[in-house]
């Protein structure tokens, strides 16, 4: 067993589960989507991205790309949230909530892809 692989897998899966936890619930109901969960999803996603830095393999490159996509989507979601609540003062209306959650759902897709690649890599790794 390799500790590096454990940590790597842990962060990738945690990024996906946190993201999933934030997304699940009614699309436009702000009560179902906790802001803390979004915060942790962003932090864990960023860490997962940094862990993927410096991989020179083809699969490593796709890993990094999918993580960057997830980061971008989550940060966009946070941006929408901050804009709606503080900059324009619209508040968390159903429309705003829906757009935050759908952005996060896009990130979830990228995170799922990451986990699938992790599994594929593990299956291919015969030794």
């Amino acid at each position, binding site marked *: 067993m390799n500790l590096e692989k454990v940590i790597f897998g842990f962060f990738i899966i945690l990024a996906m589960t946190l993201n999933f936890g934030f997304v699940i619930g009614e699309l436009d109901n702000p009560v179902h989507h906790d802001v803390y969960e979004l915060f942790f999803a962003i932090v864990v996603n960023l860490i997962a991205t*940094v862990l993927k*830095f410096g991989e020179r393999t083809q699969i490593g490159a796709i890993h990094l790309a999918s993580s960057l996509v997830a980061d971008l989507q989550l940060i966009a979601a946070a941006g929408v949230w*901050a804009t709606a609540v*503080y900059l324009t003062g619209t508040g968390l209306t159903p429309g705003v909530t829906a757009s935050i959650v759908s952005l996060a759902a896009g990130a979830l897709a990228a995170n799922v892809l990451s986990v699938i690649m992790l599994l594929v890599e593990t299956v291919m790794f015969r030794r």
Partner: protein
Amino acid sequence: MHSTLFLILRRMRAPLILLILSYAVSILAMTLIPGVDANGRPAPPLDFFHAFYFVSYTATTIGFGEIPMAFSDAQRAWTIVTIYLTVIVWLYSIGTIFGLLQDPAMQRAIRANRFAAEVRRLRQPFYLIAGCGETGVLLLHALDSRNQQAVVLDIDRERVGELELGQYQQDVPALTADARLPENLIAAGLHHPLCAGVIALTNDDPVNLSVAVTTKLLRPELPILCRADLLETADNMASFGVEDVVNAFETFGEHLGIAINNPGHHLLYQWLTGVPGEPLAMPMEPPRGTWLVCGYGRFGKAVARHLDKQGIQLVVVDEHPPSDHERTVVGRGTEAHTLLEAGIEQAAGIVAGTADDINNLSIAMTARQLKPDLFVVLRQNRHANAALFQRFAAQATMQPSSIVAHEFLSLLTTPLLPRFFNLALHQGDAWADVALSRIAAVVGDTVPEVWDRELSKTETLAIWQALSEGRTLRLGDLLRSPSNREENLACIPLLLKRGSEEILVPDSDTPLLDGDRILFCGEAHTRRQQALGLHDYNTLNYLLTGNQAPGGLVWRKLAERNKA
């Protein structure tokens, strides 16, 4: 670029993760700790937006203060933690980046990348030069003054550094790298479509050999010029088809031999390979008779072999004299008694050819004291000792680096010139004297410029047009002056090469064909005047017929109608 970026990312992993974690902890706590309002009543904690704002300006030590409103004591306590945590992690991250940029491995990677990019961007033909010692710098200066681009690889960092400080018209991409590694040659543009040739002139024979092998395998069509200090290396290189191998000792030995037996030919060589514009060299006339060769190393052997070939009597002076030579004397030659024992009083010349400059000077000074009219040939090993050798003023000074550089330069700029000397050598002394007097008549008393012309569509468009119209051109037409066709340009055709046929000093009546290569010598401005007729069809027409033909299409048509 990619490899350096990945190197930075890989090394930045730990600091970046620490940075993310410290931000996350600081922001999270700020969103949980309750604040206080203006009246001292408890207020809700900061939200994520303001927490992120606060931590961002605190971590980067900007410190705007307590925004959006004054903090509670609990928030202030956590702010202390935030400051120490995030500021330290920030400094650590920045320190790591600077450390990375200072890292020798990193700097090497950056330099190699920049070099490869510079080479990729080259848009004119260039020569790849491996080795930039004394020979390399001489060659580089000569190429640079002819507007030839070069790319340099050298193992020594200081020499590459000196190159960057050197005065060159062009930017010469240079890299500190081992030329033995194929990847370095590839980075230096071995696969570049504009690479015109590879020149290996390090002072290490195995390196030159490996450059030659690499080039022959990866780009067989590229010309390779190699320096070889050992005869075995030269043979080895020639065996797998390296076009031109220059051995400084052999070259000098050969010329010394020629100078003794055919002084005219040697003078011809000196005149045609000198620096254009300098005064013509006076004939060097080494006497026949017995010669002393002091130092029987690579140089001594080469000289002895070539003098032997010319039938010159030799006495070899060496601490370990060879057994295969008839007349040998044991000693260094720096002492008078050794030279006397070798028979200096009856000798005509002496070759001071050890690998040590000071010993060579000592031999020469002793010899000149014993016999002032002796012909002295000195071997100079180091360029730095030039002042000493100039002061001594031997009849001939052999400097390996300048010989190799001159040979390479003539091979690169006038590939026909070595062929000319080869053919000329088979002619008698009388022929050489005639050639010398013709050249002297044309160029006066300065070293002439030597150039070759290829008759082809890309090089000489006007000639190509005239030939494809079926007109007959003779060599004499190229010698007419564009300002007055009755006058001749001050230049001499030395050699005409047509396929495998070579005509030495061709006649003015020789008809020209597409693909001919002609070697000329004359003054520099003559070369420019000649070029007018080669590129401009109207000028060529004037040279051929004496008519000032109309240039434009309409006028040409009108002229044809008038004729009809």
